[in-house]
């Protein structure tokens, strides 16, 4: 039906088998969606080659851990990311569980994004392991979209020893669907003339923006496939879903005007932590807020941002969640200020002695640090916390993440019982 350059594994692809119907027409397909296959798991397998071909799950092994990534062998048992680890173990007891080691992934992720940058500056990263590329311009230099997709797949495999799948299409959302269809280690071109044919058999849930709620609402209306959706008058969809209705109708016919936006700037930077057991001690909660504030501030500084709005997320043990935020007088990237505001927000939330499952700290309203100014206060020291924290960043870069941190976050080498 479609021209496959892939959908078969890379090893089978070389030497390339001629597609039964010749190469697909990719002339109207400047958009690539590149998605690493089982990214974290694939990276872990580089260090554990003996596990290749077996079910492997990456995620915290504890009772509250969730699956971050799983090899295709594990997926065959029904394991998928975001699944609670307890359930994953039950359905796939033979899987090897590897705790996540974040530094490794971001290193590979950075390298992969650099490969994309050598193809075109029109790269829109969506997460650490997937990105959209608009190769309209690059095609003059590097050949067809399919050739560029193969070039990327080859370079990623050669440099990092992991595989990725590429969807090639006329729009972002079709490219994303295509890469999903050809996973793992595949390449799928959906020619501009075949978009409708490609979309209509798919279930409505495949469409971008159709979550569980929308899907249920559509199924209630008897709409199960994208083809069903395409037959519903726009006015009916608008009545049901408001402005989103018109958008759904457009998607069902493969119309998606969203451009590839190179490097969409960070809108917010945040970290959150699920406690290993629910906590109601305000001191322990504040200590966690301090740790998160330190992390968020370090990330802000590393990205060259300052933020003006501090937001705190507090989840009770019954999963009810509240968020509280406050906009500061001036933007900051100083952990001490973020922490002070976080504590005030926590105290004002009236959750004293309420058992919390998760806390999070987030900075919003970001802008480049280079444009930030600072109102000096009477009696302020010339060099303040900001300089101290910048010095911390340097020490950490040199000596590792444990090198410097607030004294209240230093764990005792011995518990009090040992003394």
């Amino acid at each position, binding site marked *: 039906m479609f021209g496959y350059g892939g959908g078969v594994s890379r090893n089978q692809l070389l030497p390339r088998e001629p597609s039964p119907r010749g190469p697909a027409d990719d002339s109207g397909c400047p958009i690539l969606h590149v998605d690493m296959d089982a990214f974290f798991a694939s990276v872990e397998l580089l260090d554990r080659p003996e596990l290749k071909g077996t079910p492997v799950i990456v995620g915290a092994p504890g009772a509250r851990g969730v699956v971050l990534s799983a090899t295709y062998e594990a997926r065959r048992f029904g394991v998928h990311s975001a699944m609670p680890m307890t359930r994953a173990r039950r359905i796939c007891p033979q899987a090897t569980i590897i705790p996540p080691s974040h530094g490794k992934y971001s290193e590979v992720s950075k390298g992969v994004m650099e490969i994309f940058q050598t193809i075109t500056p029109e790269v829109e990263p969506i997460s650490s392991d997937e990105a959209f590329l608009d190769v309209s311009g690059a095609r003059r230099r590097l050949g067809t979209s399919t050739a560029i997709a193969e070039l990327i797949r080859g370079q990623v495999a050669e440099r990092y020893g992991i595989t990725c799948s590429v969807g090639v299409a006329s729009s972002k959302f079709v490219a994303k669907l295509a890469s999903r269809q050809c996973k793992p280690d595949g390449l799928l071109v959906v020619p501009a003339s075949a978009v409708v044919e490609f979309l209509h058999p798919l279930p409505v849930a495949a469409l971008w923006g159709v979550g569980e709620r929308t899907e249920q609402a559509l199924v209630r209306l008897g709409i199960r496939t994208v083809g069903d959706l395409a037959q519903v008058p726009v006015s009916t969809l608008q009545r049901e879903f408001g402005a989103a209705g018109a958008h759904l109708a457009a998607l069902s016919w493969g119309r998606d005007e969203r451009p590839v936006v190179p490097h969409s700037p960070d809108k917010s930077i945040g970290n959150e932590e699920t406690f290993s057991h629910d906590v109601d001690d305000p001191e322990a909660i504040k200590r966690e807020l301090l740790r998160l504030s330190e992390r968020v501030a370090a990330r802000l500084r590393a990205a060259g941002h300052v933020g003006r709005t501090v937001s705190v997320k507090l989840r009770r043990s019954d999963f009810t969640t509240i968020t509280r935020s406050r906009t500061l*007088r*001036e933007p900051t990237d100083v952990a001490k200020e973020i922490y002070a505001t976080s504590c005030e927000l926590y105290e004002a939330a009236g959750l004293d002695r309420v058992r919390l499952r998760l806390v999070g700290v987030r900075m919003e309203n970001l802008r480049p*640090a*280079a*444009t*930030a*100014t*600072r*109102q*000096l*206060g*009477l*009696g*302020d020291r*010339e060099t303040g916390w900001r300089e101290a924290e910048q010095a911390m960043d340097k020490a950490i870069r040199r000596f590792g993440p444990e090198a410097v941190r607030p004294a209240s976050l230093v764990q005792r080498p011995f518990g009090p019982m040992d003394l």
Partner: protein
Amino acid sequence: MMFRIDRDVLAEAVAWTARSLPARPSVPVLAGMRLEVTQEQQLKLSGFDYEVSAEVTLDPQVGEAGVVLVSGKLLAEITRALPAQPVDFVVDGAKAVVTCGSARFTLLTMPVEDYPSLPAMPPAAGRIGSDVFASAVGQVAVAAGKDDTLPMLTGVRMEIEGDTVTLAATDRYRLAVRELKWQPEQPDFQAIAMVPGRTLADTAKALGATGAQVEIALSSAGGTGEGMIGFSSSGRRTTTRLLDPEFPKYRSLLPTQFSARADLSTAAFVEAVKRVALVAERNTPVRLAFRGGEVILEAGSGDEAQAVEALPVEFDGEEINIAFNHQFLLEGLGAIDSDVARLQFTTSTKPAILTGGKPVDDGEIQDYRYLIMPIRLSS
């Protein structure tokens, strides 16, 4: 209880007393205004919200002793609207009847026995011209903090040393200091008081209109009536509770050595700052570059709108680039009360001092100083 009094006298006194009434009273009686005719045939109007009290004493044409409590806000609105004729106020059971010309109002009275008694005035400490006092308080209160979560910065500090009163206020970003002379009751009187800034500014302004002398009532440390300050003038008295006297040690923060001095026409400077500030968001800077005979004012950033303007300046010292919150700068320029504004600097991250330009040359003490902290531009 009854009295008859001229409408204008009553309306003004009621309006003055009603100022101190709480907008959202914690208990209903605090919304009341107390009216009392004493055995001496004097009419006293008073209000109190446990923080601030106000009382006016008047001489009615006719009076019959008694006391009553009525809604202060309503009474203020009624007296303001009455025609210019004598007003009769008569209490009849649980009602008070106000008659003026052919207009007649019946008001419900409130339980006067539930009303708190006004605090006693502390002992009189000294006197000062009400207009001088009002302008000095106005100059200083502008720098007091508006953030009620930091109460210690919302006050105006009054330091009294013999015949000298020093007023100071700061919100951490600027500091205003004014010295003035007064007539103390005791030549060696000493006291320190933190007066809530907004109340002091309102009181000084209201008493300033009388043009008479203001008597300040304040006990020296350890004396009776501590924690309270009183002001009285022409039959009006007001008291307010003091704040915790904690205050930054500001004298050491006032720079005395400068590397540059700039004299500008105050009016032209204000106009120029207002113009360039049109493109500056709240809490963002106006940048000033002093070069020889000229200062370049700039605001806005490359991503947004920008404005630039040049002004002539009499400049002496090292060239400097410095940035200020435009609102703080304008408030300082509005407070110096001089045709010439003088800015003195050391560096672009050290406080600058704004004063009126001229009197220094006569060897006189600069009686008003407005310190302003710069905004540091990103390096």
